[in-house]
């Protein structure tokens, strides 16, 4: 086992899957010779050649549309969108085709494609480089929406996504690309898509989050223990769609209280669905209104203000304490 950053772990997943399966083709802008602007695809061009680490012309519709054709042909394209803020150039290909080819052809064809994109804020980037719009994809039938929270699950989930027979939108929280390392086993490891995990056990309160926001959420849980003697259970969703509501509703049935944390905008955001599922499935055990700690309903501000936009430990803590007081 080696200590790896998320970038290295993702790279490991790609390298190994490409070694094992010549149907796996990585494509996108600058994923080849340059190794990707974040170096996630570093070395693939050298190892597997330009036809398997394929630099594309500058067109996201082209990338996704072509990848759909490749997938129908029986390949397993892993398309990179350089930043999730530019995935909208391909949104029609995703909504109209990737999500529907299996359904439209009644199973004759399928689209075993992964669309990887770095997303979310926190790296002092330019406009369009900081959004969290996973809700668009989670609301779209036919897609899967996966968001890892650390190097190890990123690697395992990416392997599963590549092997998945259906299209997976795989959003990588770029602020934790290199923020910390974890032990990542050299040997194959997969994680089931559509399953959440308990990142920390507790019985007083349920905190639900995913992606980069797991860190302030876990930190808040620690502080709650230290400062308030409260044991928060923390759930890492990992997959937003299909949403594993069993795990978090079970938890809330135990704790009676929940706080959801994400950096996506609040209104019509992922937290709304999670709160609704809790209400639908655990209403009678709820002892306080569910709280949402989220990004605001504004365009993510330029980076001088992005930290103020983002949920942080303090905001999670105060929401948790309010929930506990209620």
């Amino acid at each position, binding site marked *: 086992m080696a200590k790896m950053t998320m970038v290295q772990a993702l790279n490991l997943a790609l390298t190994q899957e490409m070694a094992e399966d010549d149907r796996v083709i990585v494509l996108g802008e600058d994923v080849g010779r340059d190794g990707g602007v974040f170096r996630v695809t570093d070395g693939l061009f050298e190892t597997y050649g330009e036809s398997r680490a394929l630099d594309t012309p500058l067109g996201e519709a*082209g990338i996704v549309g072509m990848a759909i*054709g490749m997938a*129908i042909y029986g390949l397993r394209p892993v398309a990179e969108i350089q930043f999730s803020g530019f995935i909208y150039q391909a949104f029609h290909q995703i909504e109209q085709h990737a999500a529907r080819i299996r359904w*439209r052809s009644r199973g004759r064809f399928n689209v075993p494609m992964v669309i990887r994109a770095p997303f979310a804020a926190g790296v002092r980037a330019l406009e369009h480089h900081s959004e969290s719009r996973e809700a668009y994809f989670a609301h779209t039938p036919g897609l899967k929406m996966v968001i890892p929270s650390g190097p190890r699950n990123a690697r395992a989930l990416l392997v599963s996504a590549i092997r998945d027979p259906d299209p997976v939108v795989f959003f990588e929280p770029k602020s934790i690309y290199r923020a910390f390392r974890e032990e990542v086993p050299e040997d194959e490891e997969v994680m089931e898509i559509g399953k959440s995990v308990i990142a920390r056990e507790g019985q007083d309160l349920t905190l639900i989050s995913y992606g980069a926001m797991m860190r302030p959420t876990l930190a808040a849980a620690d502080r709650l223990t230290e400062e308030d003697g409260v044991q928060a259970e923390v759930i890492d969703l990992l997959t937003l769609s299909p949403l594993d509501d069993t795990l978090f509703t079970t938890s809330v049935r135990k704790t009676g209280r929940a706080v959801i944390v994400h950096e996506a905008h609040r209104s019509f955001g992922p937290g709304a669905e999670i709160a609704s599922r809790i209400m639908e499935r655990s209403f009678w055990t709820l002892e306080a209104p569910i709280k949402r700690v989220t990004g605001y309903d504004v365009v993510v501000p330029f980076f001088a203000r992005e930290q103020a936009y983002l949920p942080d430990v303090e905001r999670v803590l105060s929401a948790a304490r309010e929930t506990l007081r209620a």
Partner: protein
Amino acid sequence: MPREVIEIPSTIEYLTILDQDGGADPALEPELSDEFLLSLHRWMLLGRRFDERMLRLQRQGRIGTFAPVMGQEAANVGAAAALRQSDWMVVAFREAAGELMRGRTMEDLLLYYGGYNEGGTIPEGVNNLPTSIPVGSQALHAVGLAWGIKYRGKDDVAMVFFGDGATSQGDFHEALNFAGVYKVPTVFVCQNNQWAISVPRSRQTAALTLAQKGLAHGVPGIQVDGNDVLAVYVAAREAIERARAGEGATLIEAVTYRMSVHTTADDPKRYRTDEEVEVWRQRDPINRFQIYLRTKGLLDDEKLAGLEEDIDQQIREAVERAEKTMSEPVDPLVMFDHLYAESYPHLVDQRRELADALSDKES
């Protein structure tokens, strides 16, 4: 250094073989077996008759909206006929005649336009993609298929169909550009039927031809008489040969005409004149080809009558089968099928919800 002219490859040829009276230019006439010629005719005629039947069914409310092929049978069949079984055909929504030739069944088409998802099924072994309604979007899929073909070292091709309107879509250009860069075996077939619903070709683009759009991407283009099945076939065959030989993509503009409504929801009287339609009726691709076949001694009234009867029979049987399905109670739970390879708890729950709602209603 004066202003220099840069030599860019920019030749656009126009190809026509049959004249309006069905006479063939001997210099250009391809050598084709009688059998092949008759099959071109048969599929064109089937396309026409099936269209007519669908139109009646639609007017009777027995199927929903659909886009007739009428007038474009030569473009459909001429291009599709140049493909072999292992090639790929990527369609929009006005290729029924070509799709039938390639193995999509009339029954499925009827079910499709009758509102049944089952009609989207493509038989195993038939390399057609299903109907793609978002204009122009399917062109990229053909490029991806062609990329796969090249990657696997095969000499198949992927042929994609679209209309004149589609050439205004960004996706069409991205497809040409990707095909140019990767030099993949894609054949782009534009059925320029002069209209995108109510927008005439002249208001769709300021370019003189649609074929020249390939030039923007280093992809050769050719314009062909789209009502001349031999010309379409020859142009498609050439493009396919180039593609199989590793020389990359071609854009074929088949100049044709939509003789009927855009779809059954459309009223063309609002935007075009009867005179214009009449002019094109004179160029009917089936008539023209029939004269050619008659001249060659391959067709006469009797043979034609026999063929018509055959086709009628075939259509009648397909309609009967489809109508049988459509007259049986539909199982709404089917809507949960084929979304993913496997089901998920929320879908299982919702399926049960629907099942309960349905049984409530019954009781």
